[in-house]
């Protein structure tokens, strides 16, 4: 729906797509979803810090959620990363919000580094969430509704975010082909203007 609207508005497309994945209409849903997951993760972290009671869970029960959050796996992760895993998840979702809001609606061209950083924050987070949910069922033997909700959000974020990352990488690939220079590609990656990048972008903007 958002993509169709973006096309109707006539925003310059970002090849290989026929819409602009950096448009606000594509980015705002990502930011909203990440914001919701951030709030859920903060609630789960509050329980792991014992600043609040067990989280609400009408499906599996609060006891089941508490079992997951206090599990051996969770404790082990806390030992590795130095903070409760839910707190690190909250920071990662906050990163999605920050990097989702930063940059113009043409950042796939102007700031590829920012788009790639955004992708690095979103895509591994989705994979880690799926792994953690898998561990819930297999190793812990209990389920946590809010943890499942954040994992679902993570996967949705991957689905929403990959096109912008792909558009940026595609722009760099086309600029590399045009310039035949890795240095030019490197400069474009960091947002420096290069003639080859401008030519590729101009060709993109033309119908």
């Amino acid at each position, binding site marked *: 729906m958002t993509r169709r609207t973006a096309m109707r508005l006539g925003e310059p497309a970002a090849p290989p797509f026929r819409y602009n994945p950096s448009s606000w209409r594509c980015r705002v849903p990502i930011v909203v979803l990440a914001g919701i997951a951030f709030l859920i993760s903060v609630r789960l972290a509050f329980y792991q810090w014992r600043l609040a009671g067990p989280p609400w869970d009408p499906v599996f029960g609060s006891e089941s959620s508490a079992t997951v959050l206090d599990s051996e796996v969770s404790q082990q992760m806390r*030992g590795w990363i*130095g*903070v409760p895993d839910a*707190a690190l998840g909250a*920071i990662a979702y*906050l*990163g999605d919000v*920050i*990097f989702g809001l*930063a*940059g*113009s609606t*043409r950042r796939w*061209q*102007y*700031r590829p580094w*920012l788009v790639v*950083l955004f992708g690095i924050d979103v895509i591994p987070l989705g994979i880690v969430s799926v792994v953690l949910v898998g561990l819930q069922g297999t190793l812990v033997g209990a389920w946590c509704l809010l943890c499942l909700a954040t994992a679902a959000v993570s996967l949705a974020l991957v689905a929403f975010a990959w096109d912008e990352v792909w558009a940026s990488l595609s722009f760099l690939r086309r600029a590399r082909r045009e310039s035949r220079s890795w240095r030019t590609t490197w400069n474009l990656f960091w*947002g*420096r*203007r290069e003639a080859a990048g*401008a030519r590729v*972008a101009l060709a993109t903007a033309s119908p």
Partner: protein
Amino acid sequence: MLDAAVGAAAAVGAVLSLRRPARRTHFVTLAAATGLVLVAILAGSGGAAEPARQSRLLTGLVLMMLAIVPTDAASPPPAWRREPS
């Protein structure tokens, strides 16, 4: 003392970066945040200072993310602003 120094560095860096000649001053925040994270990691877990250590680690990570974003991120980088329309 460390927390106050990092807070002051972040605030001063952020305010100065609003002025065009000093627009890269927000990297001061990045340096201060990296220091905060390193201090938290090197302190090791456990003990009475554990809550402070975790707080420094998380605050450092948030500041790092904010510091990476360019000051005028909503506009194209200066070099691209000369792009013919």
